[in-house]
């Protein structure tokens, strides 16, 4: 089953990007402690993102005529892998590069492509994704925030929540109801691009349990948008969002969320010279699973490179990957505290507890574990 997911090697020309991106990523993480590097996804640094843009490491999957590198998903895999493993701050370009630009490329008008995509490729624009609402989490089709047609465009009223990057962002691509009611479910939804500086938009950051405020509530009160705020076709928002989520779910970011902790723990073991059989077995288990998950993620990337949208396969890799990411802090916590007489340095301890506390989000963002398993079950022919 799922026989299309087969081992693939990274092409030599894409692997060749590694030294250059590594130099930039390591430079960014050099003076930063591991618990900050472990925040890679939420590390927000516009200057760093612009630097990546200048060096040609953004828009790797996008056409050259819009400022992209036209390299494809394998190149993006190498670059993202290096950024995450170094714990570089990627939040200021992450969403735009991964899904907003491909979405605009796929569904936007020529004018929208010309305006947004080159700026995204230069690392200048921060995007956020307006999907969840107070009453719409996993049941995304129940969104209530509306965009109503006006003489000149659209008027938006309602509220989004748990919106990553909204507090620092430039634009939101929002899933909004443009006709009917929440009872119409998938029909009547559209995607609109909202300038977060527009009058009537209020962003209120939400502090999370680690003390960070990477997500926010966003309120819309009679926000006037031009007609060309619509991305793609009116009423086809659901189809577009599904395609967008496939970009979100299939990258290497779904296996590396705890890798900074893993490396810090391994250095701790190497420093202390601990090599009893239980320790070796735990290190070996993590290593075997990481190797396999990486191979699965590359196999998934190979399907993307063929122009497919491997929704089921990506769900499969993400579910296994996030389970691994979440098991790491639990097992490493037990290992360290299972040796109470062994000193643990403050940085490793902070990293462990940061990852422990934030780990539940790994299987929430981009679709919960239960939703993904439902997608896999459907792909298996169940239902």
């Amino acid at each position: 089953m799922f026989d299309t997911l087969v081992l693939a090697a990274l092409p030599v020309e894409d692997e060749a990007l590694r030294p250059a991106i590594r130099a930039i990523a390591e430079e960014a993480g050099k003076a930063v402690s591991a618990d900050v590097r472990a925040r890679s996804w939420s590390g927000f640094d516009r200057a760093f993102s612009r630097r990546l843009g200048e060096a040609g490491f953004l828009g790797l999957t996008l056409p050259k005529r819009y400022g992209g590198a036209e390299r494809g998903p394998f190149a993006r895999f190498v670059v993202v892998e290096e950024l995450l493993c170094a714990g570089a701050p990627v939040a200021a370009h992450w969403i735009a590069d991964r899904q907003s630009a491909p979405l605009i490329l796929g569904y936007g008008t020529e004018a929208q492509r010309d305006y947004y995509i080159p700026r995204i490729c230069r690392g200048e624009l921060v995007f956020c994704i307006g999907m969840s609402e107070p009453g719409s989490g996993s049941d995304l089709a129940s969104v209530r925030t509306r965009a109503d047609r006006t003489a000149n465009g659209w008027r938006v009223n309602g509220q989004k929540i748990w919106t990553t990057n909204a507090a620092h962002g430039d634009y939101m691509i929002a899933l909004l109801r443009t006709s009917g009611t929440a009872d119409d479910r998938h029909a009547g939804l559209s995607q609109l691009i909202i300038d977060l500086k527009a009058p009537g938009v209020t962003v209120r950051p939400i502090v999370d349990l680690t003390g960070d405020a990477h997500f926010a509530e966003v309120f819309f009160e009679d926000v006037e948008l031009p007609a060309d705020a619509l991305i793609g076709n009116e009423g086809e928002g659901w189809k577009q969002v599904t395609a967008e989520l496939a970009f979100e779910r299939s990258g290497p970011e779904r296996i590396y969320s705890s890798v900074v902790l893993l490396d810090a723990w391994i250095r701790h073991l190497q420093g202390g010279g601990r090599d009893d059989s239980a320790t070796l077995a735990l290190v070996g288990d993590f290593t075997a699973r990481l190797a396999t998950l990486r191979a699965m993620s590359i196999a998934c990337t190979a399907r993307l490179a063929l122009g497919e949208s491997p929704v089921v396969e990506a769900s499969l890799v993400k579910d296994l990957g996030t389970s691994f990411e979440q098991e790491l802090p639990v097992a490493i916590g037990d290992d360290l505290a299972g040796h109470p007489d062994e000193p643990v340095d403050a940085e490793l301890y902070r990293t462990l507890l940061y990852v422990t506390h934030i780990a539940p989000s790994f299987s929430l963002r981009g679709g919960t574990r239960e939703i993904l398993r439902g997608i896999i079950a459907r792909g298996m022919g169940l239902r």
Partner: protein
Amino acid sequence: MDYSDILEPFERMLETVATPTAVRAIERGEPVDAMWNAIAASGFLDALVAEAAGGFGLPVATVQPLWQALGRHAVPLPVGETMIARALLADAGLAAPTGPVLLVVAAPGQSVVVPLGLVARHALVEQDGQLGLVEIAPGSAASTGVAASLAARIEGAAIAASFPAPAGGLRALAALLRAALIAGAADRLVTMTTSYANERVQFGKPIGRQQALQQNLAVMAEDAVAARIASQLGCAGSFPPPLAAAATAKSVASKAAARIAATAHAVHGAIGISAEHDLQLFTRRLHEWRLADGSESYWNRQLGAVRLADAGASVDFVRTRIAPAA
């Protein structure tokens, strides 16, 4: 020859000769000659033997799907073991016997459990880094007493004429084979269990419509794909494989094996426990292969030691030591 040119005839042949009825007959102790002769006549036993020595000289990555097919059909003969043994013997310039050959790592006098030990008369035995072909004396392969199992308890006899074992030893090669067999049987079990869940009606609908079952079956599919990819990783490079690659394959496949067998039985309910149902042909093998040639914790310890000896980052380690080359 491309992949399907090799796999398809092999799989068709197995479908004909290794039916569940034929598998059960051999498990009851009936003669193996008909099945063995059909497989031997196909020529695939020399898949790994160098072309210069009269074999196909296929890379192990191409042979891996054949091993998976053996697992998918619960083939009750040591076909994969014989492929490996024949390649090693040919490399040493030695002739192979016509019958099945086991892979055994055992010091003189040490007793080890060897899958399919009851249906082979020869073994390639490793002792102190040396390999030797040994004829298994009548009566020296003892049944393990496990129902329907063809595994045998074999005592290591001193090897006479010997040649150096490959780097990493016989156990790493056998581990690669076991991982592929597990991946093949796991794939079969996912298909069987999904079909059953779509057919079996309880509470007025197929049980496969229950979310609780769907979630478990999704995890089962994840484990099966992980076992397959890990097996492919193990077979992606050289033969004999780097230790880290063999360890990854067997660790991930062995861990998946027990979980997959458990879910397959949980979904099938009582009928899956019966000897009459084919499910047990595959789940019993998953457990046997998991325990053979080092379980997940054995290979995790081997891999952990190699990893801790490397000062680099985790992703660099898996990228350079356990990944296919472009």
